[in-house]
């Protein structure tokens, strides 16, 4: 058993535990922090799987930007910081767990039966190659994504911005 | 007259009304006279056109489809604009154009509330296109389209111009306006039938070399292309589609409601033409394309018809509403038509066609009269009417005449349909269960007695006796010129057909015989 594998198992263990924490903790900040850990562990996993550029992006975009966004969101919406018993919709728990559990079992069953293989960890950076492919073979989606982002930007700003006039007028 | 024979004439007969309807909508509302005049003229032109087709029609070859044409319509599904008429459709086509003219004449002075002549007349014209189209269509899809086109105008005619009295309906908690209930019932029933009918058409299409052409399918059908469960199913759905329209017991319940609720002209058109679409469908499509199935189903149809005759007559005896009574009488009369069709003999089917025409003329007239009376008296309750002969002598006399015609008085049009249908049913096609048919025939014969019973009873209650005092105060107007102009032609037609049935038989007989020969062999 190689060292990579052992590390990987630990990472996987960590992933699961942090992920569980994300969805079960009754403290919103804890949840967000746990997500940071989850993502960080994912990034490490990506590194092991020799996708260092993706790992990098993950760290930059997610941990750097998205989580901050989340924290902002949490604060702006004045979610109760600290322990909050009302964070979960308790009624949904049993059914939610049942659905999630069955999805898990189903997916695992199929994945275990469906895939098996060795992973040879390539050494060296593939970032250069990745960049080239991204900007040649996949240039079209690349351009398109910019539209998505632009749309999200414009729309997000429009929606999120404060317009007292409008609200007053259309208040139901 | 090249134009008349190559299909253009027929096309004009079909589409002229709807084009006129469109033009009509462009005329400003205030020009009421122009609207009425235009509608009348266009319907008359249509009628004249259809009559002009007569000399072009080769009566010695009445069994051939004539004056038609075939143009590609929807290529991808091989549906064509294929039209033509033979001896079977000719009388019905002319009846349709004729009745429309009368309906419009009547409407000139007798628009139901809320007036708005534009919409009303436009709907009549659209309706005419649907009716004429159904009778000339020789392509299943074309047939289907025309078959359905009639629904909308009739729906609106009942719904907007219909009877506004509120009544309670079985199974509904709240009371509901007659017209609303009736209109949707009519629509849903018919659509229910035709939705399945369409599936049947598609079934034929796939088993029949991917063609929707009725003549081609007849060739296939008579050579035994459709057999087994498939054919049974297809006939079942076609039966459903047509039987609802006829209507056959127990699918008839939309009819009394629709008739009761419809405005006078609506009832007239409904009774005179719309009901015929169903029975015409049987003759034109169901029987020749699926002869074996027709044979298998014939006893069932005969039994249902017999039930319909008796049931309709008995229901009539229980009615207090004049229009509803006439509506139920339609159930009985169409029972005779279907009994004739079920016999699958030349006599029976000829009887069915003349029965259809006669019923159209007579019941149309009955609805004209009852509608006019309802308009005059503001009631259709036979308990309150009475002494109509005294109050409205012209209307009363015509009502008496028409009731006599309706009960199948020999010498008038109604007789031939009844008598010949019974004649046909007594000896049905070889191989059919004679006992069933003869029992049905006896039931039908008893039905004639009941028919006489309820019509005479109706006359006694409505026409005869001393008028009730409540009418003393009211100013009652007897039939005016427009009404008479709409009615007298029907009276004349009733007598003419009664005395000289060759008017109809002359056209239909060859066609029917050849149709049956094709379907069932010599």
């Amino acid at each position: 058993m190689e060292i990579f594998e052992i590390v990987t198992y630990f990472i996987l263990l960590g992933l699961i535990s942090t992920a569980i924490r994300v969805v079960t903790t009754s403290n919103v900040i804890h949840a967000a922090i746990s997500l940071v850990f989850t993502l960080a562990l994912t990034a490490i996993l990506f590194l092991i799987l020799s996708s260092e550029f993706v790992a990098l992006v993950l760290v930059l975009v997610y941990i750097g930007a998205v989580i901050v966004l989340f924290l902002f969101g949490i604060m702006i919406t004045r979610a109760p910081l600290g322990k909050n018993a009302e964070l979960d919709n308790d009624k949904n728990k049993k059914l939610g767990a049942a659905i999630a559990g069955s999805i898990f079992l189903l997916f695992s069953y199929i994945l275990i039966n469906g895939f098996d293989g060795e992973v040879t960890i390539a050494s060296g950076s593939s970032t250069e190659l990745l960049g080239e492919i991204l900007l040649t073979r996949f240039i079209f989606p690349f351009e398109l994504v910019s539209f998505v982002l632009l749309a999200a930007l414009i729309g997000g700003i429009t929606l999120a911005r404060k317009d007292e006039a409008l609200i007053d007028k259309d208040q139901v | 007259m090249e134009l008349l024979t190559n299909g253009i004439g027929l096309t004009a007969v079909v589409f002229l009304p709807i084009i006129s309807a469109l033009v009509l909508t462009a005329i400003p509302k205030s020009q009421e006279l122009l609207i009425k005049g235009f509608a009348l003229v266009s319907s008359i032109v249509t009628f004249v056109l259809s009559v002009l087709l007569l000399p072009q029609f080769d009566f010695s070859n009445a069994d051939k489809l004539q004056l038609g044409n075939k143009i590609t319509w929807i290529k991808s599904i091989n549906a064509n604009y294929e039209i033509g008429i033979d001896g079977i459709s000719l009388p019905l086509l002319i009846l349709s154009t004729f009745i429309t003219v009368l309906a419009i004449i009547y409407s000139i002075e007798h628009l139901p509330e809320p007036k708005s002549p534009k919409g009303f007349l436009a709907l009549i014209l659209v309706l005419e296109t649907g009716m004429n189209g159904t009778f000339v269509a020789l392509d299943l899809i074309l047939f289907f389209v025309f078959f359905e086109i009639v629904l909308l105008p009739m729906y609106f005619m009942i719904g907007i111009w219909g009877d506004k009295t509120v009544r309670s309906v079985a199974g509904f908690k709240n009371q509901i306006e007659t017209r609303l209930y009736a209109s949707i019932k009519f629509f849903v029933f018919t659509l229910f039938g035709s939705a399945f009918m369409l599936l049947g058409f598609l079934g034929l299409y796939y088993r029949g070399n991917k063609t929707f052409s009725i003549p081609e399918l007849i060739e296939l059908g008579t050579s035994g292309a459709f057999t087994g469960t498939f054919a049974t199913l297809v006939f079942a759905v076609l039966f459903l589609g047509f039987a609802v329209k006829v209507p056959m017991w127990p699918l008839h319940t939309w009819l009394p409601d629709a008739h009761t609720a419809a405005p006078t002209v609506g009832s007239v058109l409904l009774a005179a033409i719309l009901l015929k679409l169903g029975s015409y469908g049987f003759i034109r499509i169901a029987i020749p394309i699926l002869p074996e199935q027709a044979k298998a189903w014939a006893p069932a149809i005969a039994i249902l018809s017999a039930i319909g005759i008796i049931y309709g007559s008995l229901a009539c005896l229980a009615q207090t509403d004049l229009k509803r009574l006439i509506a139920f009488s339609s159930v009985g009369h169409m029972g005779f038509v279907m009994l004739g069709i079920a016999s699958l003999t030349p006599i029976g089917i000829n009887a069915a066609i003349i029965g259809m025409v006669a019923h159209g003329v007579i019941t149309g007239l009955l609805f004209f009269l009852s509608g006019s009376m309802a308009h005059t008296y503001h009631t259709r309750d036979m308990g309150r009417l009475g002494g109509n002969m005294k109050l409205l002598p012209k209307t009363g006399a015509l009502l008496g005449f028409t009731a006599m015609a309706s009960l199948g008085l020999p010498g008038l049009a109604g007789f031939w349909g009844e008598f010949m249908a019974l004649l046909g049913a007594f000896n049905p096609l070889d191989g059919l269960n004679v006992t069933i048919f003869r029992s049905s025939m006896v039931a039908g014969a008893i039905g004639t007695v009941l028919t006489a019973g309820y019509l005479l009873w109706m006359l006694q209650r409505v026409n005869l006796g001393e008028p009730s005092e409540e009418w003393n105060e009211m100013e009652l107007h007897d039939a005016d010129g427009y009404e008479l102009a709409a009615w007298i032609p029907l009276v004349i037609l009733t007598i003419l057909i009664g005395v000289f049935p060759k008017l109809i038989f002359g056209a239909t007989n060859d066609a029917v015989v050849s149709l049956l020969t094709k379907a069932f062999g010599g």
Partner: protein
Amino acid sequence: MVNFNLILFAESEAVYTDGGVLAEFSWLLVVLPFFAALLITFFGKYLPMKGAEVALLTIGSIFIYSVLLMYLHITQGIANEFFVNVGSIGQFDIEFGWVVDGLSIMMYFVVGTVALLVFIYATNYMQGEIRYTFFFTSLTLFAGSMLVLVSSPTLIQILIGWELVGVCSYLLIGHYWEKKDNSSAAMKAFITNKIADVGLMIGIIILALNTGTLRISEILYQATHDYDGITNVAFTAGILLFIGAMGKSAQFPLHVWLPDAMAGPTPVSALMHAATMVTAGVYLLARMFPFYQSIASEALDIVMLFGVITLLTAGLIAVVQDDLKKVLAYSTVSQLGYMVAAIGSGAYTAALFHLWTHAFFKALLFLGAGSVIHAVHSNSMLEMGGLRKVMPKTFSTFIIGTVALAGLPPFAGFFSKDEILASFNHEGETTFFFIAVLGAFITAFYMTRAVSLTFLGEYRGHGHPHESDSMMTTPLIVLAVFAAGSGWVNIPGVYTGFTDWVTTRKTPIIEYHPESFDLFALGLGLTAGLIGIALGYYLYQLQGSAETGDSKIKVEPIWTVLENKYYIDDFYFKFIIDPIKINLAKAVDVINTNVIDRFINGFGQIASFLGAIIYNNIDQNGIDKFLNISSSGTDSFGGKVKLLQTGRTQQYLMLFLGGVVTISLLILFII
């Protein structure tokens, strides 16, 4: 497309002519009345006599035409028929036409004569009555319809004439339709006839289908030549045709309409009972006689049975009637029973002979009764009496009619009734013979009773009766002449012209012709008549009044049964009409609105209901409901939380994912 068809008599030695132009234009007889009816309807009001003159003119020309035909027929014999094709259907040709032969000419003559006299009479009788013009329209149509019937060479035309007669009778009986009783009587007549017509219709259908033709002459040809098709159904068809005849000719038990038909004006009754309508049944049986005789003789037995029953039962009812017209009406029923029974016994000529004589004397009696009623304004004999003095003409003619009916020589009824009795005797139908003799006795009795109560004794009514004017009495006198003399055309051993007239037909008639008087029958019949008259006179004239006379013969419970007409009407109403009209019809209506409609509406409601259930319980908050059930008791967070429990987004999500899971499981592990 007139189909000229000369009838050849292969089996007959006599040579008959085709009738020439006169026969060829006989269609005028049929068409004229209808044309006249139209004229009267539309223009009658504007004419000086309100349309009556058109009717008179028409019927007059018909009379003249029929006399001409009769003359031609007597001199050279005519047998011819003409066809007009009005349509083909399947293998059948539908044809109208007219037949000119002995039977029909005899009928033309009867109809023409009686109708003319009745019309003349009616112009006066109906003076001042409502719907005078329309009355003549209907009356003309009535005569015309009868002519359609008797001129018919095809079964289909028979049916047409048959029903037209019915309709006209409906119009005429219900002439005073302001009173419900009258319109009900009209309806009763029509419906009863319609019921019988069903028999006729089916009979015609059977005959037509088994012979392949609707022409009567061809059917008779096949019948007499033992064609298989027709022979097999002969009995059924014969009975069915007879059912039709029972309706029109008022045979027991379908006679109920005829007495009620008195609701119409008296001239109508006269016409109906004498010449048109009731004779139609007898005419039909006579027309089809060769068929019955050759292959449906079993049916004839039944015909005879019903005829005899009718003649007896109706005669008995006549005895107890107080209404003058009803006495005559039941008398007609009874006499029709004679005719039918005669046909049943195979006496073709006898039946027609009785029809012929009966037409005249019954018309006479009715018109006389009408004259009386006109004078005293009542139908009831209890309010008459002693009119002999004030109405001498009416009285004397009525007496002639009475003795003719009672069968005293040398009046017409004597010869015809005697021929019937002779035929019975000849056929060896002993029982029936004696019943018929009994009938003759009853006839004489009730006629005497009627005469006594009406004309003899003292006047019991109110008002001042007076003799009718000449427009009414002249027809009476003419008819009296006929009633007296019309029997002389067929005196056995002396002159039997009538037999020749009516047997002049394409299909030869084989029957018994008495060569001389059957003295046994003659004696018995005459005795019965005389006893009847004597008894009647004894009871009613010598005792003076109806009550005392009646009390002598009032034998309970028979009298009550007779007064109630054997309860037949009650039976019909209670067990047939009411159940159908009230119970069955109501039931059907209820079924329609409450079962079928409810069923149909039920579909709509089920759909709507399902929609509501799905919408409320599954689509929108099904998960919620589910959760509430599965986690009751978790609402422990207080009021605020409770309000929040109905959130929807997550339930949508659950539905979504639940769908995914379900589908996956379904596809991966089940299918």
